[in-house]
């Protein structure tokens, strides 16, 4: 059947196509391709992102750590309030570096730029696309999430070996948050609705996260809610990484982040498939 039915005479060299191999459900090269796209794009806007992700924690640290910190001497266990806030803000930085850009980025890419239409016309499935986007956001969050820690160090936080685990913690939490962001983008009808999500979902998360004040000062319902809050588990892990691990409790915290990531991942894939393939 070679060369059958070529109705037009060849004017140039006929395309010498390499044989196509059998493609699998999850292809490293599909995920790699989407990541390459994000990385090239990132090279054009990394400065502004890096600027805001370092300047913001610095300002928060100055405001809370030194402003509020002058009223609060210590939060117990010999941890100063600046150190408490500096470590707590890592989880916040991760959230802002992953959930927000995923929400807006996903919406812009499918709704305005139609980027996802282009990618899905290539041999890439929604599953791979969503996975790659979440991985990329997680990588970013992993790096940018360290900024508050470095700022806090500049203001006197003592480095510790446990802190080397922070990028991994950030990555896990960032993956979950970016899947959360993608899911939101897949289910809202208009970009204006993101306002509801930030005010009604994300901001209240800080009430029961232990970022700026310890969770054990909250009433019991607040402590129960905190257990359901991925932000809280991230805060706990980072703080324990800096000031000393707490055994099984940290295993539980990490397991909570992994579960958050896995559930978010499937929900995001489901939502985006519904949106992109119809």
């Amino acid at each position, binding site marked *: *059947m070679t060369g059958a039915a070529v109705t*037009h005479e060849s004017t140039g060299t*006929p395309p010498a196509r390499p044989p196509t191999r059998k493609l699998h459900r999850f292809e490293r090269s599909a995920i790699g391709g989407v990541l390459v796209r994000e990385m090239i794009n990132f090279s054009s806007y990394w400065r502004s992102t890096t600027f805001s992700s370092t300047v913001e924690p610095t300002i928060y640290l100055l405001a809370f750590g030194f402003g509020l910190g002058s009223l609060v001497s210590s939060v117990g266990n010999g941890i100063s309030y600046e150190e408490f806030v500096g470590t707590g803000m890592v989880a916040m930085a991760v959230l802002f570096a992953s959930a927000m850009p995923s929400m807006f980025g996903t919406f812009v890419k499918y709704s305005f730029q139609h980027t996802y239409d282009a990618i899905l016309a290539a041999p890439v499935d929604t599953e791979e696309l969503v996975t790659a986007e979440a991985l990329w956001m997680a990588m970013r969050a992993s790096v940018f999430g360290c900024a508050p820690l470095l700022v806090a160090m500049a203001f006197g936080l003592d480095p510790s070996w446990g802190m080397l685990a922070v990028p991994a913690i950030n990555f896990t939490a960032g993956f979950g948050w970016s899947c959360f962001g993608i899911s939101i983008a897949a289910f809202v009808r208009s970009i204006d609705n993101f306002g509801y999500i930030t005010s009604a979902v994300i901001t209240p998360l800080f009430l029961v996260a232990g970022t700026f004040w310890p969770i054990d000062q909250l009433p019991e319902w607040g402590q129960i809610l905190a257990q359901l809050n991925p932000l809280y588990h991230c805060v706990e892990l980072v703080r324990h990484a800096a000031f000393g691990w707490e055994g099984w409790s940290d295993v539980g915290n990490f397991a909570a982040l992994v579960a958050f990531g896995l559930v978010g991942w499937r929900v995001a894939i489901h939502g985006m498939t519904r949106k992109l393939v119809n």
Partner: protein
Amino acid sequence: MPAPPAIRLRGVVKRYGEITAVDKLDLEVPPGTCVGLLGPNGAGKSTTMRLLTAQAIADEGTIEVLGYELPRESKQARAECGVVPQLDNLDTTLTVEQNLLVFSHLYRVPRRDRPAAIERALQLAKLTDRRDTVVEELSGGMRRRLLIARGLVHQPRLVLLDEPTVGLDPQVRQELWALIDRLRSEGISILMSTHYIEEAERLADTVTIMSHGSVVAVGKPTDLVAEHAGGEVLEVYGPPARLAEIETEAAVAGRRTRRTGTSVTLIGDHSSNGSELDGVRRPGNLEDVFVLLTGEEIA
């Protein structure tokens, strides 16, 4: 054993709620040919294109692309086929070359072949000296050429062109026609949707005319014209009232007409009935065929 058709659709139905976008569609693209999918906006052309990349899933019927059964084997089919969408979805903040690089990854061009593949695509699109230009700064015609080159970076056997020249200047359109004609001459199978009659007449080996989601006629452009519009048609100009009169008279005489803006076109043999109408004789064209078959204006 003959090569399988590049595309084969059988009884394909696609509904969106109450709307049936594609209704029992049969379509075949023989290997190495260019098939034009002709129809007005809303005829189901774009939905058909999306079905072929499994970005839409058919409710009924079977779809085969390059011998692969869709949607089950769609990923494999997409690896061997190039898609040029109607909507420009280039990465506007990236350079020409970066856009091609990203898609050489997505289309699994092996690492060692990537530089050559990108070079070839740049040449094809005549954008070699614009490789470092950011897409935002390209003209409309250049963007469309890049969009086509992007879909060819992996040397596909089949190319899906969805309205490849919509919204472009006539001159730019002709440039693109030359590019598409070159692909055709290289033996690449092409399915091209368009609502420009001239585009279909020039580039397509066969034309499938679609209306309301299904096929109303299939054939070579010249055959379709000969069969449905005859050799020559008569175009009569006049004030609206006069045009209405002519239409009535023609209907009585059993002749087919169509309104073309400021004129009425009378189709078929007009020497026989002794009509004294004064008008311009011109060769029948696909547009006449289209309007006759569907009752719809196309432009």
